């Protein structure tokens, strides 16, 4: 879909870099919604890193006020034990974002390296890697995860992120490979090979940089998928519905505490849902901005 003609970024020089950031700013200003997206994403990152620190342990609670309606003090009310729902959403963001980040990293590392090497080396290695990629692409991730959860509880974001990453690198690998294939035929790679540079050098120094922005956007997209998958799995209740996590909140709200049955308890469900939506919106807007920054063809239009 996107073709990275990223010569301006690869040519490293202070003035070029300044130009680049000026370009970024211009793209942002063109659609203020993008600024909003960046701010929102920043807010979530802040929540995930500093949120749990802001609230002390044990969490303050109001034992006489279960399921309080929304108020100034509790914007989304309180939960079944009298904990502030907003606080739970803030604290829950850590698991969600950390998992997403780990998933993204695993996806990038596997997807990009497999794609790069397959595309650059071609031949038998390529064939084998692409068969594995095909299989990875066809795996129905959610059902597999459900079955896997019978033996593995995914208590930490690391475990969850690792598994999601292992299940989800296929699309990136295939895309990176096709980008590599086309770059491979370009002059500068030919030249590098002519100079007798080593394969790792060519891959890391010459091939990776032009593809990097594309990978970065993929990072964000795979974060969306990771958020989606983990929150969904906890929501289903097949995994332990314990812990600080939006999916757990959704599960308890809907299946244990009647958020869908009585409108008065709806805020308990809406809070994590809203967080999920805003996070999605933030990522989509940032990807939209990156798309334009890194894709000059689009910019010209």
């Amino acid at each position: 879909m996107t073709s990275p003609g990223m010569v301006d970024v690869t040519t490293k020089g202070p003035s070029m870099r300044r130009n680049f950031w000026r370009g970024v700013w211009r793209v942002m200003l063109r659609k203020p919604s993008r600024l909003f997206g960046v701010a929102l994403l920043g807010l979530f990152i802040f929540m995930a890193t500093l949120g749990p620190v802001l609230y002390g342990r044990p969490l303050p609670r109001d034992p006489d006020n279960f399921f309080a309606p929304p108020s100034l003090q509790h914007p989304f009310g309180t939960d079944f034990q009298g904990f502030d729902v907003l606080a739970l959403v803030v604290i829950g963001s850590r698991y969600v974002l950390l998992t997403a980040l780990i998933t993204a990293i695993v996806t990038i590392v596997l997807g990009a390296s497999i794609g790069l090497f397959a595309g650059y080396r071609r031949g038998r290695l390529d064939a084998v890697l692409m068969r594995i990629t095909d299989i990875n692409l066809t795996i129905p991730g959610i059902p597999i995860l459900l079955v896997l959860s019978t033996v593995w509880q995914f208590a930490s974001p690391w475990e969850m992120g690792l598994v999601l990453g292992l299940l989800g690198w296929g699309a990136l690998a295939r895309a990176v490979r096709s980008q590599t294939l086309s770059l491979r035929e370009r002059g500068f790679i030919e030249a590098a090979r002519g100079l007798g540079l080593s394969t790792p050098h060519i891959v890391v120094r010459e091939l990776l940089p032009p593809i990097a922005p594309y990978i970065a956007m993929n990072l964000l997209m795979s974060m969306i998928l990771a958020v989606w998958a983990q929150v969904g799995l906890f929501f289903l209740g097949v995994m332990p519905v314990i812990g600080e996590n939006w999916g757990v909140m959704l599960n308890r709200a809907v299946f244990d505490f009647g958020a869908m049955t009585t409108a008065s308890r709806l805020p308990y469900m809406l809070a994590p849902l809203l967080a999920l939506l805003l996070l999605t919106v933030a990522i989509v807007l940032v990807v939209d901005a990156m798309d334009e920054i890194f894709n000059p063809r689009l910019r010209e239009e």
Partner: protein
Amino acid sequence: MKVTRITATLAAFALALTACGGDDGDDAPGADDNGNGAAEEGDEPEVQRGGAYTTIITGLHATAPPNPYNPDGNSFAGYNSVRLAWVKNHPTSPTEFYPGLASEWEVTDDNLELTVTLHPDATWSDGTPVTADDVVVSSNIAYTRGSGAFILDPGAAGAASDIEVIDDKTVQFTQDPENPTREFVNGIMNMIIVPAHIYGDLLPDDFDELLQAARGEDDAADDAREAISEAGEDVVSFAPEEDISAGPYVLERINPSEALLVRNEHFHNDHLVAPDQVIARNYDGNEQVWDYLQAGELDSSHFVAVPEDVVQQIEARPGNEASRTYSPVVAGLAFNQTYEPFDDINVRRALAYIIDREQMVAVSTPDGGTAATTTSGIHQEVVGEWIGDTVGDLDPYAVDLDRAAEELEAAGLSEENGRWVLPDGDPFSVPIQVPGGFSDWIAAGENIATQLNEFGIDSEIRTSPDFTVYQEEMTNGEYPVGFWLIGLGPSPYNIYQRLYGSSNGWEVLAGRLSYNEPGESGNWKGGPETYDVEGHGEVNPGELAHELRTADEERTHEIMTILAQTTNEHLPVIQMWDYVNTQFSNTDRFITDPPDDARRVTGVTSLAGIWIQQGWVTAVN
């Protein structure tokens, strides 16, 4: 306890109205004039008939056969599956029944002989009469499953229930005088009855000989037992071509979310059966039931956990009403005493003093239970009946944080910077294990953890993905602290079997009681074999509990008193809440008004079928 009782008067009124109008019953009245019989309100009334009665059921499988032995079959007790009788939920007497296919039963004073007479008009839905033959085949099938009073193990209590056909409608059961059990009558009356002309062929022709052989103790007996159990596999997997029922209804059709049952004209008490049809709606999550109730779509529902706000909304809907009755189940927090410091009685007591059970119940199950007033192992509703005034001697373990601190100090723990630490300096932590999907347990566990943390003890809740894992890992001794159901009434043996049975090392093998050391053969509670109990000296609770199977009434009360005190003093579990059986019904289309002791029947979840066949449901016009 608030019980809605408007319906009683309404129902009586409705009955009076309809009593004059109906066709003359083809039944001999007085079929139940034996002391144990049914329908308390005077002579057999006629009910207002017609309409479709909607209720709930869980685990419906559209593809499963209408076979009552199938663990998930589409054979619903009380509707299209029948027993000789239905076990009343009498608080202290496990052997009281409402009639099913049996209209009369007689037990000899020594509890060794039971004579059952089938209702003279009992007929299968294909027109074949229900006979003694059906009972014989059904009891043979019961042997293949080893259920109730039909156990093949030589020497096991109640093993040799002999059956003798007196006449076409009368059978006599005898239990082995060497090894009698109080469960004998109960086990037989609770037996599922199936038509011999459909199920008879599933058993080997030489079944009687096999049964004789199986009672020996040699190799041939082993082979015979194996052959009998194998026949049981065929029975479980059997898929009858059509539903043949001796109950008030026959299964008409089924889809993945609902089952439709239609009136069985041949049912012997058909004149008592009001609804023409019964719709059983499947639910996979309780939230479905809440929705149905709130919309006023259910004519009755059995107990499911309902959050407080939702209860209010359900009750606010006109026509809906709730009944809250005794439910013989107790939730306890159990300890695995092979883990330190939970082997220390002071620690367990301290925890009992810290946990505010009122708050916990308010958080977790405000409508499904009442906070336990003390730990006795017995539901508070019946504890007085069993142990009399000695209830007052039990420590109530009311919240007392100072006392808790004293107990912890006595156990060698100390407080540092507001957190409690073990003698070796490690923080004292209490992991509370709960199975996933048990919302009341999870919420309760979370609240306990919250309370302990607020007191200064590290505590967190841990879940097992589901009950299967919970069950296995608990038995393997992997959890220091976890929830456990206790006090399963009404049978006194059942009450204490959960505390001083296999989970605590006492196992019944071949009728003999043996003890497994902590950590072995499912002894995960790991308490000592004997306790020193104030005023009773050394007590072996497992032996006492086992004795409850055969003890007479006086001895039963004595044992119950000792065990209650043992439990209270030594706290193998802390009693958390006593369940309340909250059921909902709706009066728009039908008046559903069963007596309290029919609100819970042993081994039956969806009770409307039993209520309907006893005439406790009547249509509103």
